[in-house]
Each structure stands twice: as C-alpha cells, then as structure tokens.
C-alpha cells in the first residue's frame, strides 16, 4: 500500500518535471529562421557547407599549389585542377595553377577536399543561395582571374615549393593512416 502510493506520487512528480522541461522549451527562443524576411541578416552557423571557395588575400593571391589532391579525393569528379608550366624569373620551370574548376551541380558537400588540402587553400563559405537559370553557370572557376600563388608561405620552404609541399604533406597523412 505504501509502495503503491509512493509509486503514484513519484510518478506524478516525474510527469511534472517532464512538463516543466517542455514548458522551458515552449518559452525558449525559436530556432526557425523566417528566411526571405531576414535575408542578409541571417547568418548560418560556422560549419555550414554552402559552397567551396578559394580565399584570396588583398593582393589577389591564393594558397593553392595545384597539387590536385582535392581532385583525386573528390568522389564525384566535381573538382578539376588545371595547371600550367611557367618559367620563374631565375629560369626554373614551375607548375602553377591555371584554372580551379568547381561544379556546384555535382558537389555532394562531403568536405573531403578541404580536409585533405595540404595548404588549406580551399574553404567552405556560408553562401547558400545557389539557384540559377542555367546549369552551365554552376561550374565556377574558384581562382580569381590574374591571381597567383602567395609567395613565402608561413613555413619556410626550399626554392621549389610546389615540389616540396607534396612529399612534406604526404608524410603526416601516411602517419594518420598508420595510426588508424
């Protein structure tokens, strides 16, 4: 009899706690974004994968070496890295990025490209308004016209950064694989 009453009152207490929690939710700020009204003011959260971008600094320089790791890792062949060979001022041949083509229409936003990029040259932006009238406009060139690779990267490298960067960054990747 005591246990019967005790179970009932503890049950009522538990139910009231549940109702208290739902009432807190009721009074909380709503998460719904009234989208077209707050256009421009609305800021998606940090990790939101809107579209792939290649950040350029104020001198129109990017960090891409044209190594093509992102292209190899892309499951949908969304990324196409086109490189060209130029001769530097001191007479050495060098491979640099010509066009970085990104097809938004076939991207699945998996994020493998940004994970594997050794230079952190590409990043996700929060821009999410992708609607266009023609499918061909979805293929975007990410490097700005006339841009070039930023010289003197943070880690000092030997004379040929493009050649040095690849093995230097393949090594830690292999280490990770071994660990896993």
């Amino acid at each position, binding site marked *: 009899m005591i246990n019967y009453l005790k179970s009932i009152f503890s049950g009522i207490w538990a139910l009231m706690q*549940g109702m208290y929690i739902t009432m807190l939710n009721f009074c909380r700020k*709503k998460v719904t974004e009234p989208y077209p009204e707050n256009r421009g003011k609305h800021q998606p959260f940090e990790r939101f994968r809107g579209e792939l971008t290649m950040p350029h600094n104020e001198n129109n320089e990017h960090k891409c070496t044209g190594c093509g790791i992102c292209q190899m890792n892309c499951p949908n062949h969304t990324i196409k890295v086109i490189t060209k060979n130029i001769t530097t001022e001191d007479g050495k041949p060098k491979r640099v990025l010509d066009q970085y083509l990104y097809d938004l229409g076939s991207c699945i936003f998996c994020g493998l490209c940004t994970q594997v990029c050794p230079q952190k040259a590409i990043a996700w932006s929060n821009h999410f308004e992708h609607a266009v009238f023609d499918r061909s406009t979805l293929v975007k060139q990410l490097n700005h016209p006339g841009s070039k690779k930023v010289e003197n990267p943070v880690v000092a490298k030997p004379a040929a950064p493009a050649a040095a960067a690849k093995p230097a960054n393949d090594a830690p990747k292999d280490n990770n694989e071994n660990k896993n």
Partner: protein
Amino acid sequence: MLELTGIINWIHETLMANIPASWLVSLIEYVLIGAGFLALYAVLALILIYFERRICAFFQCRLGPNRVGPFGVFQVIADMVKILLKEIISVKHIDKVLFYSAFFIVIMGSFLTFGGLQFARGVHGADFNIGVFYLLAVSSISIVGVLIAGWASNNKYALIGSMRAGAQVISYELSAGLSLLTMVILAGSMNLSTIIEEQADAWFIFQAPIPVLIALVIYLIAGHAETNRGPFDLPEAESELTAGYHTEYSGIQFGFFYLAEYVNLFIIAAIATIVFLGGWQPFHIVGADGFNAVMDYIPTWAWFFGKAFALIFLSLWVRWSFPRLRIDQLLHLEWKILLPFGLFNLVLMAVWVIIFK
C-alpha cells in the same frame, strides 16, 4: 452590454413581431440555433487546429504555420479547402452501409454534446435536469462510430485500432463518470444551469479544493484518453497502425474524423470548465465587491472560452510532453490507479459535503 443574450432576445422579439404564427417562429428559431451550432462547430474546429499546430510548434522550438495570412491564421482555411477537394477513394470489400455511416455517427456524437453545453449566460441549446448524465451519454456515442469504422474497413490495422479505442474509451468512461458524479454530490444537482449558479460566489475548485482537484485531474486524464489524443493515441498509433481506425478513409471522410477529434477536445475542456471551474461565472471573491464588479465587466462568454482554452492548452502541453503508453500500461493506469482514486474521492467528497455544507 457585450452579452449575447441581448442579440438572442432581439432576434426572438423581431420574429415574434413580424410573424403571426408562433409555431413558425419556433421553427425558424430551431433552424437558426442549428445553423449557429453548425457554424460554431466548424469555426471551433478550425481555431483548434490552428491553435494546436502553433502550440505544438512552440513546444518543439519551431514557429509553426506563419505564412498564409497574418500569423498564418488562414492556413487552416486553406487546409480545409484542400481536404474538401480531395478525391474520395472507394475501397473494395468493405461493408458499405457501415463504412459510409461511421463518420456521421462520430460527428453526431460530438454534435449532440454541443446541444447540452452552456456557452454564456443564457446561451445554450437545451437545459434539462439530467444535463451531466446527458453529456456523459451522448459523448460516448462517437466510440460506436469508431468501432464501426474499424470493423467496416476490412483492414487489420483499422480493426486493431478500433478495438484499442473501444477498450480505452470503455475503461476511461468509468473514471470520467465517477469524477463527474463526485461533482454532482457537491452541486446537489445534475442540471447544468443549477451547477453553474451554485458557483456564483466561488468556483467549485475553491469551494472544496482537495476533492475537486483530485476529481479534476482524474477527469482531465480520462477525458484526454477518451479523445484518443496525446499519450493515449493508441487507436491511431501512426508508427504501428498506419492511421488506426481511419486508415481506409480519405478526403472529407477523414476530415470528419479529424473534425470530431478536435471538437471532442473542446467538449472535454468545456465540460471540465462547467463542472469544475464555474462555467461562464466570473472570478469572484466573497466580500471584495469592487473587484467582483470589475470581473463582471468581462462578458460571460469570454470567461467560458477563456477557461476552456486554458484547459485545452493544458491538454496540448500534456500531449506534446509525454510518450505514448503501451496498452497494458494504459489499462493499468485506469483500473489500478484512476478508478481506486476516483472511488476514494467519491467517499471523500460525500464526507466533505456532510461536514462543511
């Protein structure tokens, strides 16, 4: 002032002055009352559906329908038009007579209950000496419609759903009836207008707080179960039974079930308001005449609908808080908890009435 009795009397006097035959006046008035109830029925269902969708959204940290019209109030009208235009799919191998009469029985049950309710001072369809008994009786008719719908659909989900509904409603009718009986002891009458007059000075919940509160909680739980909603929605448990007893219904036939469900929600809240919370009586404190006069300025229909909607909010709060019960838990709750408490409360109320009245 803002009371509805003025309009009703004006209509009556205008008809009496212009139409010689008194039987014709009565006929016209009956038709008007019927049309008024139908309009109230439809409008209430629309308001409740909107209310439910918004409240549900708020409990889930969403905004709910807010696009069609200001704050989305025309969303339900758009939905109503949609459901009216939908195709009615004719099902093979069904019991046609029963299948096509089931939803009318469900609607009829809740519509008959409307006739017995008192919405404001002097605004009610019928007022007779067994009002509480009548409400209990006719509000249980809709379960017959649910059972028929499940049987006639020739569908295992529908049959299981309607059988569950039958077990559930028959069980919980007992508790609802017992708690209303408790209140009848306190009021000394089954007549709804007498019950409401008794609460002019203080609502029943303030006259005898302990037994009335127990009875109110039991009635709300039982009423909630009778409307097949919230944690007691086993008859239409969508994750196990598709849609339960109305699986085979489409278009406006399903719309009728939907309508009846929401109006039953209002009916339970309205009965609880009348019997426990003073119906349309304003909130009065004995002795504080100034305060009472201010309260009297609020029209009685506003008091009634305000209290009813407060109870409906409580019901929605419960619905969106708790997970669905299993069938054995459901029956355990009724037969081992609510019913003993209801019987105990009946005795408690009798003792209370002998001592304090």
